């Protein structure tokens, strides 16, 4: 196996009063998309800041490309989008991108050429001479995204890249991330949006309270979780189903969304038994499917909390 792009070994980081990351180990292999999943406050951003050498670990060691130097020394190979977005508000968009390229070591003329290309690709070329503060939050985020990628880094680290974006812009960003990975480069991004992670990531690590709870390829994580899972879709009234879904002999775990639900079958119970019981009770079904567990379901089971139940992360960086 080739040298991992990021290697975190038994890293612990404590802040006054609490431990943000506790004995965390993970390896991001070279190439592909790696998702760092976890609820708010799980330690995702701290982990990323440790990887970026913005914070120093109290214990353990971190290596990038097998090199344990400060990430700043390898900065030309790394692109970073911090969770707290920040740009110089008074700078013109194009100048700002050129500056971000220059501090990564790209010659000015080349940085300008690439910046223009990015602005066109992100469909904000018309804003090139506007001040950053005149742009909407979503546009600012695109500018910062382009700034992180301008120097064509082989490792791209994105902290919550899709938060605060409307679906259209999120789609544009997603396409770019997928394209980077398709080009053989490595993307590491953090998110608490499980469905998106499930669709995009080759590998994931789920962390909660600073600890790793699951790790590996998406297929591995699902296989490790085990059990048989059923996705249900209700047609109309569903309260007759409540008693059946609460039966511990049939259902081990229920993830209820109201009009739909995902559940894990109890040990020894067959999906057919469940279907028979539901039909007998007269529950109208739109969907009944034996499925792989979703990352969301695994997440909820492992972490014991719904990632979406907590308030969405403040996009304070972009809003400020």
């Amino acid at each position, binding site marked *: 196996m080739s040298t991992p792009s990021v290697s975190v070994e038994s890293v612990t980081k404590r802040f006054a009063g609490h431990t943000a990351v506790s004995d965390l180990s993970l390896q991001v292999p070279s190439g592909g998309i790696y998702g760092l999943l976890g609820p708010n406050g799980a330690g995702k951003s701290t982990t990323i800041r440790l990887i*970026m050498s*913005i914070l120093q670990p109290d214990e353990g060691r971190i290596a990038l490309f097998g090199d344990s130097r400060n990430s*700043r020394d390898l*900065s030309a190979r790394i692109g*970073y989008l*911090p969770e707290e977005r*920040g740009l*110089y508000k008074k700078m013109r968009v194009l*100048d700002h991108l050129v500056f971000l390229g220059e*501090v990564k070591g790209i010659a000015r003329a080349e940085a300008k050429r690439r910046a223009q290309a990015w602005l066109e690709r992100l469909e904000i070329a018309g804003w090139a001479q506007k001040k950053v503060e005149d742009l909407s939050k979503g546009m600012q985020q695109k500018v910062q995204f382009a700034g992180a990628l301008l120097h064509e880094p082989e490792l791209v680290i994105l902290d919550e890249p899709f938060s605060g974006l409307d679906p259209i812009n999120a789609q544009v960003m997603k396409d770019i991330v997928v394209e980077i990975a398709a080009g053989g480069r490595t993307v590491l991004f953090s998110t608490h949006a499980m469905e998106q992670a499930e669709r995009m990531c080759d590998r994931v690590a789920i962390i909660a309270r600073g600890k790793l709870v699951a790790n590996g390829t998406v297929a591995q994580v699902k296989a490790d979780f085990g059990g048989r899972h059923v996705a249900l879709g209700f047609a109309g009234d569903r309260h007759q189903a409540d008693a059946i879904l609460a039966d511990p002999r049939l259902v081990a775990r229920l993830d209820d969304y109201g009009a739909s639900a995902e559940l894990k079958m109890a040990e020894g119970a067959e999906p057919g038994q469940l279907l028979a019981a539901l039909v007998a009770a007269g529950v109208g079904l739109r969907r009944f499917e034996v499925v792989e567990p979703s990352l969301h379901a695994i997440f909820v089971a492992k972490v014991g909390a719904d990632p979406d139940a907590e308030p969405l992360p403040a996009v304070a960086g972009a809003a400020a």
Partner: protein
Amino acid sequence: MNKTLAVIRREYVERVRTKAFLISTLLLPVFMLAMAVLPALLMSGGDHTTRVAVVDASGSGLGQPVVAALKAATIGHGRAARPRYDATLFPATAANLAQVRDGLIAKAGFAKGSGQHGWDGVLVLDADTLASGKLHYYGDNVSSPEGMNRLQRDISKALAGVRLAHAGVDQLLVAKAMVPADMDTAKVTDGKLTGQSGEASFALAYAMGFILYIAIITYGSRTLTSVIEEKNSRIMEVLTSSLTPFQMLMGKVLGVGLAGLTQMAIWVGTAFVLGGQGPHLAGAFGMGAEAAGKFAIPSVPPMLLVVFLLYFTLGFLIYGSLYAAIGAMCNTIQEAQQYAVFVTMSILVGFMSMFGLINDPSGALGTTMSFIPLFAPFTMPVRWSMTAVPPLQLALSLGLMVLGLLACVWLAGRIYRTGILMYGKKPTWGELWRWIRA
């Protein structure tokens, strides 16, 4: 190095491009000119011809020579000369003195509006005047020290002439004896004449100190606000993953410094152009050629310019990095101001010390301060322009400046490294010490 250049360019361009830069570039000279010219204009009592009524109740014919002396006084020299006084004699006796005097004061008044007949002042000579030199002047310009001194000088001259004549001294001899001393001062450096007058070299030193003071106060402190802005806009995290604290610090201080220098260059350049046109401009503003001469720009000896620029650069970098370090420690400008006071105080001490140096540029105070990096940028150019500084002292002082700069940048870099990512409460002195040692 290229990265530092990118930071310098950014800091420079973003600053020079602002409206605030344009406005301050235009307005400050206007303000400073007003500060310099207005008091001088007000204090000089004006350069117009003063109409004086001389009431002679001396009984000894004192009025005639006094009026003659006043008529001889001129504003300016040579062909441009105009009479300083328009004096008219009113003979009187001890008995009707008060009546004549009050009549002149009341009839004409001192209002400018009374035109041809308005007296600017009434001079009263009585019987005692010749012996005691005591006389009275009633006028609307009595609070102008310069005008009154000049009037008193001119009258003294007339009195001395009359007294000598009474003592039987020949009139021609008196005229010869009364030719005043006219002293020109010139500065000597290393046994050579520099061609500068004493007044000019002080003015030059003062101007340089003032430029440095203004530059540090306005631009040095801007590194502080700029660091705080970067912290608050959270761009710091992107920067710190690409740039070393040293690159960020030096780029910022140099970029801001260059913006400051640009503004200074515009001012100084304009001043030189205007200085060359001084007499024309003075005429346009209704000032006499003599008043314009006061604002002429003395030529700067090349060595002094080199010394000044060296100290200016070193001083600016030292103070700039100190301000940047304070910015890194704090989260709000208000918070930073508490720490910045210490830096501002030492700038003030350095600036104020210049005035102490005027009397004794090579004294213990001047020598000591030349060796303290925080003060030397103010002290040394003043000493250099006013007296001959031993080369060894200059070398030692510059050496200490460089060491001081390295120490400041190192210290600021340490604080910067930790401080720029610290949000929330400001550090205690103990924490600060830990940042520096870490």
